[in-house]
């Protein structure tokens, strides 16, 4: 019984990081109705920033977190102007294709630079032992940092003028423009924020598990599952969806072979999309 509890707790810890990744995806969707298919590649970018900071430069591993937030934001704003800006207001197909093209370029460059062999960044972090079960320090640290970043995002969105502008643009772009909000700048800002969130979640995931250039696809799919659970365009829902996914993974692990877990996830994903296209946790918002 305690074994299952421990597995669930660990699932929730990891799930909060999935939630952080999904917040990036859902923020972009909520503000500009664009599904960022470069999401996975950006997660991988965050992973390799950890690798560069910790292994190549020899700095403390968690130093990669602020580096990735700043770099991810700048990268996201640049990406918005290169690939996304012309897609705003055009059919969904166009923005999907544009962001996927960015994904291909990033993965291609990553493969050329780092090949597809696995990387592992050992992070030293003391764990905690309870009733004979050890909770890894990195998992707890990742969950704490994910919660902290999510809290900061909340403050930014709900306690600052910029956040108010982002929420206004998400609600009604024309009305926001009429009220004197520079909507294009706000869109690029929101895209930068989304990319920074995705990237920093990649950095945190890389402190937990080994990774390759191609890991992004799996985490991108997880992000989709989480976003759909939480409701597209709803950051708070995304965090809850992430925790829910972690819970499912933690609960399922003792009972079924690991290779069956993705089936449960994707099955849930398709079912949720069809049955609750606005998300399970979106009741309040609608």
């Amino acid at each position, binding site marked *: 019984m305690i074994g299952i509890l421990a597995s669930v707790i660990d699932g929730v810890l990891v799930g909060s990081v999935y939630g952080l990744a999904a917040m990036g995806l859902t923020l972009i969707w909520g503000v500009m109705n664009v599904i960022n298919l470069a999401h996975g590649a950006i997660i991988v970018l965050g992973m390799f920033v950890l690798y560069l900071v910790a292994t190549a430069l020899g700095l403390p591993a968690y130093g990669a977190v602020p580096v990735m937030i700043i770099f991810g934001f700048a990268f996201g704003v640049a990406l918005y102007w290169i690939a996304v800006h012309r897609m705003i207001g055009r059919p969904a197909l166009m923005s999907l294709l544009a962001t996927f*093209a960015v994904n291909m370029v990033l993965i291609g460059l990553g493969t050329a630079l780092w090949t597809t062999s696995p990387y592992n960044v050992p992070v030293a972090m003391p764990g905690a032992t309870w009733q004979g079960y050890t909770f890894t320090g990195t998992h707890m640290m990742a969950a704490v940092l994910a919660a902290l970043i999510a809290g900061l995002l909340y403050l930014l969105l709900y306690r600052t003028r910029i956040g108010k502008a982002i929420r206004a643009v998400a609600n009604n772009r024309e009305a926001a423009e009429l009220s004197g909000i520079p909507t294009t700048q706000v869109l690029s800002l929101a895209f930068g924020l989304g990319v920074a969130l995705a990237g920093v979640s990649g950095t945190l995931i890389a402190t937990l598990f080994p990774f390759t250039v191609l890991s992004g696809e799996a985490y991108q799919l997880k992000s989709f599952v989480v976003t759909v659970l939480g409701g597209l365009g709803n950051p708070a829902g995304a965090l809850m969806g992430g925790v829910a996914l972690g819970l499912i993974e933690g609960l399922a692990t003792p009972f079924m072979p690991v290779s069956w877990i993705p089936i449960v996830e994707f099955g849930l994903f*398709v079912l949720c999309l069809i049955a609750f296209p606005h998300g399970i946790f979106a009741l309040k918002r609608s």
Partner: protein
Amino acid sequence: MWRRPFPWLIVGAALLYALVPYFTDDVQLRESLLLAAVYIILASNLNLMIGYAGYVNFGNIVFFGLGGYICLYLVNDFQWPLILAALLGGVAVSALALLFGLGILRLRGAFFALATIGVNAAIQQIVTNFEPWGGATGIYLALDAYGSLGGPMQALWTTYLLIVALTAASLLASYAIRNSKFGLGLIAIGQNEDAAAVLGVPTPLYKALIYSASAFLPAMAGGLYFFKSGIIEPTGAFNLQTSIEAIVMVMLGGSGTILGPTLGAFLYEELRGYLLIAEPFSHFQLVIAGTLLLIIVLFAPGGLLGFVHRLWPRTRRWLE
């Protein structure tokens, strides 16, 4: 339909495509053309969804892979003849697509695209765990499976000719659909679904039908292709990358046209073949494909054919 020159053009081109490597006995040319033909089948059937109905099927490769699995399973474990096995694969996948389509086509735009990615991923995982189909290692075809077609050498030619026939069938089907009431309904859905529904187009039925129709020939092609390779395994059969490449081909040539996806598939395949061989580019194949796609999407959403049509409007009449 046969009174216009275009279908005859398709038949003639397909005959040329099939006979040139056959009579020159050029195996290398055949392999290159076969791959291009498979891509043409994928792209032109995907075009039925993207170009006509305006729905992006990101997981279109699931038809190809599933058709391949069913066909190889029947040939290998039950000694079915190839053509019958491929046909049954096509029918089964098509029926499955119809069932699925009625569910996931309730979603629109980006939601639908996400669901198709999910369907592909879910099926890939199920097949990976499905022991009768060899699980993660897949199905290896026994060599005597080629015996009924007159040995491996002859079997490769037979599959090539069959795949070219499927290619021609894909193009003719695209043409026939576009000039039918069904096709006009689909194009109306692609332009404005609500307006189409108000005007009496049975949108849920049409969407499910075209989703199912766009599964049939790729599933058969998957059967033939994996029969030719002699092996099928889950990562290769349900490769999301190939799915996306098919989208690139459709966009490159010009979605919504018949010649466009064909041209796009052929050019993309030849370009990729060149990039893989050329030393300085071999690592950057994905980068180049991605940049190409971005440029098309940003600056030429009509693709190659759209560009030609805009430049010389009179070509619209015979380049369809």
